[in-house]
């Protein structure tokens, strides 16, 4: 478990290249393995042969509903949400040079939650499909505001953006709490959303957001080569010939699209964007491209597996996936922190 010789930014202590590739392949295998239980296991205890039969085109009306209308769509949604959160987390940690940053640090989640609360309270919106647009709009508006405020002055550095994001996020969280406390009806509906859930997230919810996620992923891929330089600081990056301002805007846009899109689909799912890049960094070393690739595979596996757990923990009901990721995430993070050498950026 422990690799005490690993050093930040030095190749000396990293796992050998072959072992790193093996680990990336392992992560991909983990992802593939997560898909199986996500289709086979759920609150409706259908026998495995019946599920397989349904997948091959047979099955009863009930099993077809359970497999095709419930499990398959939520598995796909879980994959999309996980991938987006993992990549957004890796980007924001490299960008802010803060290993404790998560995609919410720029206030994206707070903005999305506030818009959803306003929609529920004043516009009477009640379905995940309605929340999608509110959450997207909230995330986008908030990032623009944070960037507008945080980039005034000479140094529009990550620190300034982070402080602005945290401050505005805190104000909006307060307003959201105020709204939900005075409107328990809204609170009732927000409860499911704000825990982060994949229930009833069908393709009608996922498809409109998918283009945003894809653009976010493309942007992430585009900035990936510059991230190692950025993670060492703006000055080093400039010395490496990186257009720091451009990369920053691309990273911000990508994080907003990915985290905003993921939040729009499932509500704020905590810990995934924070924890997964950590675990991956520990697995593959401090190479940002590998961390991005690793997060892209490990995070969806974590979300999908957590969702499977949530389906069977409180039978015959379900526990929202966001609650499960928090349960799973906290101990893993503590274990990581307790390692002799914390994996740096």
């Amino acid at each position, binding site marked *: 478990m422990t690799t005490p010789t690993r050093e930040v930014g030095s190749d000396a202590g990293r796992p050998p290249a072959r072992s790193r590739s093996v680990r990336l392949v392992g992560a991909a295998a983990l992802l593939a393995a997560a898909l199986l239980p996500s289709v086979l296991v*759920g*609150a*409706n205890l259908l026998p495995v042969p019946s599920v397989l039969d349904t997948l091959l085109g047979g099955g009863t*009306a*009930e099993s077809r*509903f*359970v497999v095709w*209308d*419930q*499990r398959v769509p939520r598995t796909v949604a879980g994959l999309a949400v996980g991938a987006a959160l993992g990549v957004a987390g890796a980007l924001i940690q490299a960008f802010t040079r803060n290993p404790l940053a998560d995609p919410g640090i720029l206030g994206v989640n707070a903005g999305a939650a506030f818009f959803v609360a306003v929609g529920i*309270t004043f516009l*009477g919106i*009640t*379905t*995940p499909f309605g929340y999608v647009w509110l959450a997207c709009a909230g995330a986008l508006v908030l990032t623009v505001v944070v960037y507008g405020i945080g980039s005034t002055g000479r140094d529009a550095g990550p620190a300034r953006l982070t402080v602005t994001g945290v401050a505005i996020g805190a104000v909006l969280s307060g307003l959201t709490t105020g709204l939900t*406390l*005075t*409107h*328990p*009806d*809204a609170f*009732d*509906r927000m*409860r*499911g*959303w704000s*825990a982060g*859930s994949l*229930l*009833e997230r*069908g393709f009608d919810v996922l498809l409109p957001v998918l283009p945003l996620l894809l653009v976010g992923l493309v942007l992430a891929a585009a900035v990936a080569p510059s991230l190692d330089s950025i993670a060492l600081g703006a000055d080093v990056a400039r010395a490496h010939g990186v257009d720091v301002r451009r990369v920053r805007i691309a990273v911000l846009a990508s994080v907003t699209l990915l985290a905003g899109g993921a939040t729009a689909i499932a509500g704020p799912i905590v810990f995934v964007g924070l924890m997964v890049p950590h675990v991956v960094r520990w697995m593959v070393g401090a190479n940002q491209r590998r961390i991005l690739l690793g997060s892209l595979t490990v995070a969806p596996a974590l979300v999908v597996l957590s969702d499977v757990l949530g*389906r069977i923990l409180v*039978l*015959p*009901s*379900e526990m*929202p996936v966001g609650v499960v990721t928090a349960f799973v995430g906290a101990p893993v993070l503590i274990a990581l922190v307790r390692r002799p050498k914390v994996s740096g950026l």
Partner: protein
Amino acid sequence: MSLPRTSHTSLRPLAWVSLPVAATLALTGCGGGGQDGTGEAEASETRAVAHARGESEVPVDPRRVVVLEPVQLDTSVALGVIPVGTTVLNEATGVPGYLGEEAVGIESVGTVPEPNLERIAALEPDLILGTETRHSALYDQLASIAPTVFMASQADPWAENVQLVARALGDEEGATTLLDDYEERCAEVAETHGTEDSTAQLIRPRDEVLTLYGPTSFAGSTLECAGFTTPEHDWEDISLDISPERVLDAQADLVLVTATDVDAPDAVPDAIRDNGDAFPELHVVDRSFWITGVGPLGGMTVLDDIDRILSAAE
């Protein structure tokens, strides 16, 4: 404040003994003001009401009542004692419409889980009704504003809570009449529509899971009162949450889905809509009385609704 209580408590066991004496001395000109027979025995104008927090001295004829729980609001209005203040489930929508004209003007004193003490005190109530399971921490502060009576839990059979409210308001007879009328209406609906061999299930969509209401809930007990049987489940207290994957567990001869807006196109959750064949008798009903209309007025409104639905279906 403590003096009359002490004297009252010590006198109470002697009430029956002192009754003839009191009558002889004609201390009270108007007998029969109280329901419990001890009230007129004393000069004081209060009655003792036993409740979840012990015993409180409440005015014989409370005029400025503040209620903190839907069943207390409904029962008070039904008994003709319009409260001066009430908590609401949603400050934007206020007092539920089914309570009628008189109730519309009742001042809001915060939400059911979070009553506002300042607004309660400003109304200068002479009686406050609350609920131990919800407002336990506020009892001492409420009691310092006005005599306060707490019911134990909103999950108790609602008819019992109606009786406690009636005791606090000094009108137990009125409550008996209301509950009798309700039972009578139940029998009428059951007989008119021949419900005795049918099952009925109320579903409240919540957080994308489905909450099924059991026979001890307000809605469930009213359906059973109207002759229906509730399908068997392992109820957790008054209800049971199920995953949409198990939506077929919610099948019954009559299935009712609650909504804040019964005409909303998305009132029926996806899981039920996708299984339309399994729910031939499906109706959307108004949550404001089916879920939160606990009390005799709400009960009558629900029974009228059942009558309307069954008449339309025939």
